[in-house]
């Protein structure tokens, strides 16, 4: 066990975690030069396309130092707020963390929040000043910030560059010297913590775990404590770039198990694996349940695919424990699921993964946060869906979640950041200068105002020089209304939104305009209305299409026309008929792109 080191790489988004991981893999010869593409651990298509890490990724390296051989288990984590649950689970499998700070950007909001996550779990922190090669790097200034934040010594900070490879050997030495090796009774009954899992269509469910006590051997008869189900360990092993089978995975090590489980519900991240014949006395505490920030309905475009959607979401949940869902139904869309997400990016990624990994075409409805309704008769309940919004005459009050937002930006952008936050119903709580040029602003704001496009707006008004983090701080009473959308007088519940009364008119007008743009003309006129209760507050019409016929179709037009019509036919598959009106899939998310 003395030769094992388990650590994760944590940082603010884009500070260079995955690139530094590449160098560690390269310098320890874990991945051959030929296989080493940039950010090799970002192996999902979506991660590569977007250039961000979405999933934590564990990989084992061998390294020899001063004549001794070590096993280093590395977990690369995502930096975006929406995936902080990935970070917290990775931390549970580690004794140390590399805290990466971009030498040009300095400490940012998620540097701090991820650091706190690691400290709560008593991880040894190794601060790394990364991207030192950048001409805009300000190493001394950023070192000051790090010393301030961690209370560490200046010399503890390792200057490095994931690009040039500078500092990588120092980091490897620090991992071995400074991070404690895992503890745990090797002789005790098996106790392993499942920290991640994934569905594989050929092999069933693969669970990733860290052995806290005892050991697991191939062929063992094991039990998953929470679900109570038992299995034979058909294959166990450790994680290299691919899975690498072994006969035994011992205390302190990180590994995987394949035991022919096909049903997604049988594996729960946070569960404990133990031996059937010799069970451990108490299970690991597991993970706190995640609290979703946003809710939206997910419906199959093709109503026949409801059950398939359910199994797909269950399988996806294996690989994303922060996704929660329950069945719901909508008058417009039929049967689907109300899902909880950690943010808008998370929601977008889930929709994309359902489409790509499970071939499901889905509609995502207008997202909202979770409210508390108090009725005049004393009853109270949670409102996760606009259709649960009570009749105003019976409503005593409705409360909405508030957050404390921490924004770090440059002094020159303070004015515009304030303007943005106040426009979003924020109240300034504190303003402090971290250095002469860096300001930390703290606001109390309604969560509903920041989940949609807040972060994008913040980035654009600050030219990218603002980082943002938030925590829920409770509920406050608020003047909310339900805005309904009607198409040819038929209310479309999936397009309803809960919104502050002061914003309702502008919002209603914009959403009608947006829908007019997105709904393709049909053979009859379509009237789009926004309403609060019986009162219509906005209206647009999509004129009837009277003619849809190509005039000329000669030699050169044929294949062009064919392609056009094929595309049109394909597009129709992404439309949902509500009443007589066909609504394209994107229309349901139109609210997010209003401006």
């Amino acid at each position, binding site marked *: 066990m003395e030769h094992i080191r388990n650590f994760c790489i944590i940082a603010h988004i884009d500070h260079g975690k995955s690139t530094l991981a590449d160098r560690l893999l390269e310098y320890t010869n874990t991945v051959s030069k030929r296989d080493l593409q940039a950010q090799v651990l970002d192996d999902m298509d979506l991660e590569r396309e977007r250039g961000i890490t979405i999933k934590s990724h564990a990989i084992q390296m061998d390294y020899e130092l001063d004549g001794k051989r070590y096993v280093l288990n590395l977990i690369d984590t995502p930096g975006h707020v929406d995936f902080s649950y990935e970070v917290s689970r990775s931390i549970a499998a580690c004794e140390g963390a590399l805290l990466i700070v971009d030498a040009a950007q300095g400490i940012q909001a998620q540097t701090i929040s991820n650091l706190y996550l690691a400290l709560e779990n008593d991880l040894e922190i190794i601060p790394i000043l990364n991207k030192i090669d950048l001409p805009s790097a300000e190493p001394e200034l950023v070192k000051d910030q790090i010393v301030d934040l961690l209370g560490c010594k200046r010399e503890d900070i390792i200057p490095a560059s994931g690009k040039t490879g500078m500092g990588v050997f120092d980091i490897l030495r620090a991992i071995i010297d400074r991070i404690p090796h895992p503890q745990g009774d090797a002789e005790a009954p098996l106790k392993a913590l499942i920290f991640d899992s994934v569905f594989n269509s050929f092999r069933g469910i693969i669970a990733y775990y860290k052995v806290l006590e005892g050991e697991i051997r191939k062929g063992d008869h094991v039990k998953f404590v929470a679900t109570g189900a038992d299995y034979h360990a058909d294959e166990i092993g450790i994680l290299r770039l691919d899975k690498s089978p072994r006969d035994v995975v011992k205390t302190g090590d990180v590994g995987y198990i394949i035991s022919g489980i096909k049903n997604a519900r049988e594996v729960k991240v946070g569960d404990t694996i133990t031996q059937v014949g010799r069970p451990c006395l108490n299970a690991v505490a597991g993970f706190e349940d995640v609290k979703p920030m946003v809710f939206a309905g997910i419906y199959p475009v093709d109503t026949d695919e409801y059950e398939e959607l359910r199994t797909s979401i269950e399988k996806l949940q294996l690989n994303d424990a922060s996704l929660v869902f329950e069945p719901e139904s909508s008058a417009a869309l039929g049967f689907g699921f109300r899902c909880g997400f950690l943010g808008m990016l998370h929601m977008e990624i889930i929709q994309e993964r359902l489409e790509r990994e499970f071939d499901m075409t889905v509609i995502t409805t207008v997202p909202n946060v979770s409210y508390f309704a108090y009725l005049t008769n004393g009853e109270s309940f949670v409102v996760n869906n606009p259709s649960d919004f009570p009749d105003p005459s019976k409503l005593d009050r409705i409360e909405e979640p508030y957050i404390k937002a921490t924004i770090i930006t440059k002094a020159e952008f303070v004015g515009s950041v304030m303007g943005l936050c106040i426009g979003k119903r924020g109240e300034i709580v504190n303003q402090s200068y971290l250095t002469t040029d860096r300001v930390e602003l703290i606001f109390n704001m309604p969560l509903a105002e920041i989940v949609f496009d807040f972060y994008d707006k913040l980035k654009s008004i600050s030219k990218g020089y603002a980082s943002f983090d938030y925590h829920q701080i409770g509920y406050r009473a608020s003047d909310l209304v339900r805005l309904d959308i009607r198409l040819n007088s038929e209310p479309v519940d999936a397009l309803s939104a809960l919104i502050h009364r002061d914003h309702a008119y502008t919002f209603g007008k914009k959403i009608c305009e947006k829908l007019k743009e997105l709904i393709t003309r049909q053979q009859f006129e379509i009237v789009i209305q926004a309403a609060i209760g019986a009162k219509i507050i906005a209206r647009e019409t999509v004129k009837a299409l009277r*003619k*849809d*016929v190509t005039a000329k*179709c000669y*030699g050169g037009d044929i*294949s062009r026309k*064919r392609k056009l*019509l094929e595309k*049109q*036919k394909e597009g129709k598959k992404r439309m949902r008929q509500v009443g007589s009106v066909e609504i394209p899939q994107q229309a349901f998310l139109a609210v997010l792109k209003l401006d």
Partner: protein
Amino acid sequence: MAGIYLHIPFCRKACHYCDFHFSTSLEKREQVLQMMQRELEQRSGFFKGVAVSSVYFGGGTPSLLSGAELGQLMELVRKNYAIQNDAEVTLEANPDDLNPEYLAMLSQSGVNRLSIGVQSFRSEDLAAMNRAHSAEQALSCISDAGDAGFSNISIDLMFGWPGLSMEAWKDNVKQALDLPITHLSCYGLTVEERTALTRKIAAGEIETPDDALAAEQYLWLLESAETSGIPWYEISNFCREGFASRHNTSYWTSEPYLGIGPSAHSFNGVERSWNVSSNSAYVQGWERGFRAAETETASEPERINEYILTGLRMRRGLDLSTLKSAFGPIVHDGVLKRAGEYIDSGALLHHQSRLAFTTRGLLFADRITAELFSDPV
């Protein structure tokens, strides 16, 4: 049946709605025509011995060709290809070019069919479209053509043009139907991207076309052409009995055609290919001895879709028995099944193993066609 298309990529001025390939600079004229001659020689094996039943000069403005230029092209066509004796030889012409001398030259060169770009008999429309001819020329050229011996004349008209009222359209159609023509092509205005028209509409200089009115104009046209003995035989084409355009019909019946000149398309029964849409790239290619072109071989589902698309353009409709023998009963049954709701609603007619649009169905031909397409595999 097989046809040769020659694209003459020059126009005197640019009509506002047009997105064809043409240049208003005549600078490259000589070179382009020379290279077209080279292309005619180089691709003489295209039809593999199948006789050519139609030759079509399109554009652009073929009536810009001088007698000598036309003569040279015709000579090379005859020399390199097996042209049937009774072949249809069409030339697209603008009214302003058709003076009696020019018409006489055309007739001597072997042109036996004229397709005249009239568009409208009203000068306000012609001015708004930026056409080069006047309303008088539109009328006089037709009688002059008759005098020069042309008995097979087609004219083009446009409906749905902003400002063209229903009454004005009726007048245009009536005037056309009274003329000694054998064929009529009527195109609903399509506002193509990257045309002056699009810009002018966006700038508010021309009002947005009214598609409800265009639909009404089309329906009225279908009816009055029918009663005047020039019924529709293709979505945009009308003719007296026996005067369907032989050349254009080959496009809708999957016959091979060879396209010569910049941007011209060819189809050899299997492959579609198209020359570059640039006069200079076309010339440069042939100067170096190669044909600057792209080729595409359609997959089976794509060929099925093209068969459906072109078949439905014709009044006689999509030939289901050929569809079945060429692509199999599963494809045939799929198409018929998807057609079901349109047959029921009266948009399509299923008769004697053919599927054809009714007048009502014609207005929505595109979306119905798309619905009948085979599903991608």
